[in-house]
């Protein structure tokens, strides 16, 4: 509304300026005739000639030539001016209809064209405003979250009645992520994968859930999910971002920067992960190359970090232990899952439980005893982690 008022005001002011001379009564006395303007120039040329002569810039003969010539022009203009004055063109014969049409044309044309090309309802979004929005959870973001919470509640009601609706879990899982409910998100992603099969977005979503659960670090679980997602779709932006983050956390800062840069340069990549990659670049690029002026604190998933940080250390530990136990149990029932075994082995080894890790390697090798390729994969994987493969390869 304010926009319409201001636009109208602008139109009125400018039209006012334009039509002001037409609205004033004409003052014929003040208007000189066309040829008077010429006379002014020639008279000035004559005056100039005199001063030039006085100064000795030109000699008398040259001055005479010039004076004669200017005099001829002056006379011609004089005659023309006289003729003009005699003709007495009628001044100020205002053409009312024409002016009215002109006055109507401008705003009409402007409105029609603007309606075709403009986006009248759209607000400006300066950077300062956008940053403020992100830093004030009490305002816009809270409102957005309220909407999401509403949707989540509906979806939950629906799934309570129909727990086998894979699509429902698929829709709900990213919402949990957004609300920072990491454990619900993990559960929902796992159900969706179990019911609908694995896709890159589901795997990487699950990875993000693990990332949030670990308190903002790309742990083994998260990492293996991201790797799985990239295997499914090498262009999955989220996974590419987190794998680079994992590299950075693992000390391979250059690799991480490279990963983010290629992500940013990739046209197909999702904008929000490009933005996250920018943040990552700023954070790690700044550290690696010493003080980037104006570099701000990392802004990665603030709510997640907050959420997980609010857990006690024991809770977190218990939760991780619980997850591993679940994975272990699942692999006992369904051992044909290389990625699962790798995740389990890595989890144990990261937690420093070497005997458990080696036990897992052994069980995996037993499970793949008849499958050369998968057997080899596990052996290589174990070797990379510095684990013994239980004498099978020695």
């Amino acid at each position, binding site marked *: 509304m304010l926009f319409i008022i201001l636009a109208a005001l602008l139109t009125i002011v400018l039209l006012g300026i334009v039509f002001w001379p037409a609205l004033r009564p004409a003052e014929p006395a003040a208007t*000189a005739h066309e040829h008077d*303007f*010429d006379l002014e120039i020639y008279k000035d040329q004559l005056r100039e000639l005199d001063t030039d002569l006085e100064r000795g810039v030109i000699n008398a003969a040259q001055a005479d030539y010039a004076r004669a010539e200017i005099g001829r022009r002056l006379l011609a203009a*004089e005659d023309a001016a006289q003729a003009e004055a005699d003709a007495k063109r009628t001044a100020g014969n205002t053409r009312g209809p024409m*002016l009215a049409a002109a006055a109507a044309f401008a705003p009409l044309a402007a409105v029609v064209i603007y309606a075709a090309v403009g986006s009248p309802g759209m607000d400006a979004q*300066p*950077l300062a405003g956008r940053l403020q929005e992100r830093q004030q959870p009490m305002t816009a973001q809270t409102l957005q979250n309220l909407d999401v919470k509403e949707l989540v509640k509906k979806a939950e009601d629906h799934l309570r009645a129909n727990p086998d609706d894979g699509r429902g879990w698929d829709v709900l899982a990213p919402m949990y992520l957004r609300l920072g409910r990491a454990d619900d998100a993990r559960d929902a992603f796992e159900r969706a994968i179990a019911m609908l099969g694995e896709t890159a977005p589901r795997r990487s979503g699950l990875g993000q859930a693990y990332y949030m659960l670990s308190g903002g670090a790309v742990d083994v679980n998260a990492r293996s999910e991201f790797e799985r997602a990239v295997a499914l779709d090498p262009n999955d932006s989220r996974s590419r971002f987190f794998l680079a983050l994992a590299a950075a956390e693992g000390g391979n800062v250059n690799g991480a920067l490279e990963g983010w840069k290629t992500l940013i340069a990739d046209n197909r990549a999702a904008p929000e992960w490009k933005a996250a990659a920018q943040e990552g670049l700023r954070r790690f690029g700044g550290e690696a190359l010493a003080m980037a002026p104006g570099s701000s604190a990392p802004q990665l998933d603030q709510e997640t970090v907050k959420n997980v940080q609010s857990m006690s250390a024991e809770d977190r530990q218990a939760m991780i232990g619980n997850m591993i136990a679940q994975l272990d149990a699942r692999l006992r029932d369904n051992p044909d899952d290389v990625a699962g075994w790798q995740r389990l082995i890595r989890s144990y080894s990261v937690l420093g439980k070497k005997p458990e890790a080696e036990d897992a390697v052994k069980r995996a090798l037993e499970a793949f005893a008849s499958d050369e390729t998968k057997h080899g994969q596990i052996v290589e994987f174990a070797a990379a982690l510095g684990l013994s493969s239980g004498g099978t390869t020695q």
Partner: protein
Amino acid sequence: MIVELGHYALVLALALSVLQTVVPFVGARTGDTRQMAMAPNLAFAVFAAIALSFGVLTWGYVASDFSILNVWENSNSQQPLLFKFTGVWGNHEGSMMLWILILSLFGALVAFFGSNLPPSLRAMVISVQGLIATAFTGFILFTSNPFTRLSPAPLEGQDLNPILQDVGLAIHPPLLYLGYVGFSVCFAFAIAALVEGRIDAAWARWVRPWTLTAWIFLTAGIAMGSYWAYYELGWGGWWFWDPVENASFMPWLAGTALLHSALVMEKREALKVWTILLAILAFSLSLLGTFLVRSGVLTSVHAFASDPTRGVVILAILVFFIGGALILFALRSSTLSNGGLFHPISREGALLLNNLILTTAAATVFVGTLYPLAIEALTGEKISVGAPYFDATFAPLMIPLLLAVPFGPLLAWKRGDLFGAAQRLYVFAGIAILAGLVTLYLATGAPVLAAIGVTIGFWLIVGAFAEVWQKSGLPKAGVRTAMARLSGLPRSVWGTAFAHAGLGVITLGIVSVSAFQEEHVLRMAPGDTTDLSGFSVLFEGMEPRQGPNYTENVATFQVSRDGKQIATINPAKRIYTARRMPTTEAGIHTRGFSQIYIALGDPVEGSNQIVVRLWWKPDVTLIWFGPILMVIGGLFSLSDRRLRIGAPVPSARRRQVLAAAE
């Protein structure tokens, strides 16, 4: 909302431009004083609307409002503030916005300073300006809208082209556009004169300040662009005969010719038709420049984005204005009366010679620029017309002009006297000497050409002040009389002297650099030393540095002479993070008028060496000091009181005043 208000203002500007075209035109043709009186206000209103719109776009850049597509594509929140400002015109849409901003500014200036113009002429001029504004504002809105929105706004923008992240961008395009678009005023005056059917000495005087203004800005803009290319591109050259450079040079040549022929028209009412044609040509060549640069026909730093529709639309605008103007010219020029007669040896004759050579030169550049394009369009074959063509055609054309320049101001109007004839002999003498030296060069290979060039340069500088010297009466008149006379000289005389001397200074710089520059390309490892024209240059090493939106590897060179340390030069190779684009930053040390110029090449693989290019460029800065002198000369001329004649007093008192003047 503020963004949309700017967008609306631009649309309103288009609607008002249509009124600016129609209302004053109808008023002038029917003698309706009210409609004619609306002309200045229309020009003001259009300027206000476009300025508001441009201001909003600038705000979008400064506030990093990435909900504007154009801002997101060409800016980044990490950019230094200056480049957020200059980024506004560092892209196709924004530069067109700058174009129409300046166009409407000139329209408003004509309206503001136009009170000494006959109302119908002023109305016509403003109307033609309005037509140009309509065409280009429409072009912007419908093919290159800078206010296209993007929602939701991305977090970070894509950054400005790194080559453009330089102070040069703050200065070069605005100056150049002030020049280009300034000629639109001359064009409008020419069209108005043709439509009105009256072209006289007074017309020439009214146009003169606008031609001068445009010429001053264009001169400064081209020189600035040349220096920018010199230090930013890292090739050590100051002029590449690149089509884009030529595009700005052609209007300059035509504009310079116009400046001189308008002088003849003002004083003698001669060369009228020719002057009108030049006014049309100067702006047509400016439009052609805009077309070449904006249509994407040429691929260069300047072709920010290539889009075939845009090219076609600009071509249509070009054809409309140039074609229309020339048709009008063909229809009307025969009705113009002939002006005063003159002898070949006279001021008019000299100025005519100037015009002939300048327009031939412009035609030469025109052919060299467009011929490759035409060949490519017809046969698909890519040929390149480079420096050899221009060296072989443009340079020989310039030599007689440069030799003749000092004579011009000394010759009398209408017919030169014996003195003039004697001067003609000097010209022949000069040609003879020249021919002799050329023969000598061909025979022995001595650097005679350089000697000739330097001679011409000094001849221009000394000759430029010959008129001033002559008029001061020195040494016969005492110093006091001389000083009095000098201070009484019209400022335009000083303007001529400075501008011509500037030409000489440029010639000296060009000759000196072409003949005596030293260039080395070599591999250097840290600790290596090399000799360059008597200087000893030590490569100390490289170190990484972090800029606001780039990272760079800076090399340190110590320059010394006879064991004494003189300067530290730091060329660098940068990588701009957002676009992953490398650039080369040349390191330059200025000594007097000369410069040491160092640019880094690529590192040599498998070693700690790097390719380094070093130049010793003697007197190179003269190339840019010359244009500064020319601009100063132009400003002197512009301040001449002749150009500030007031409006006539109302007709009732006309006769009295006339009587008093006589």
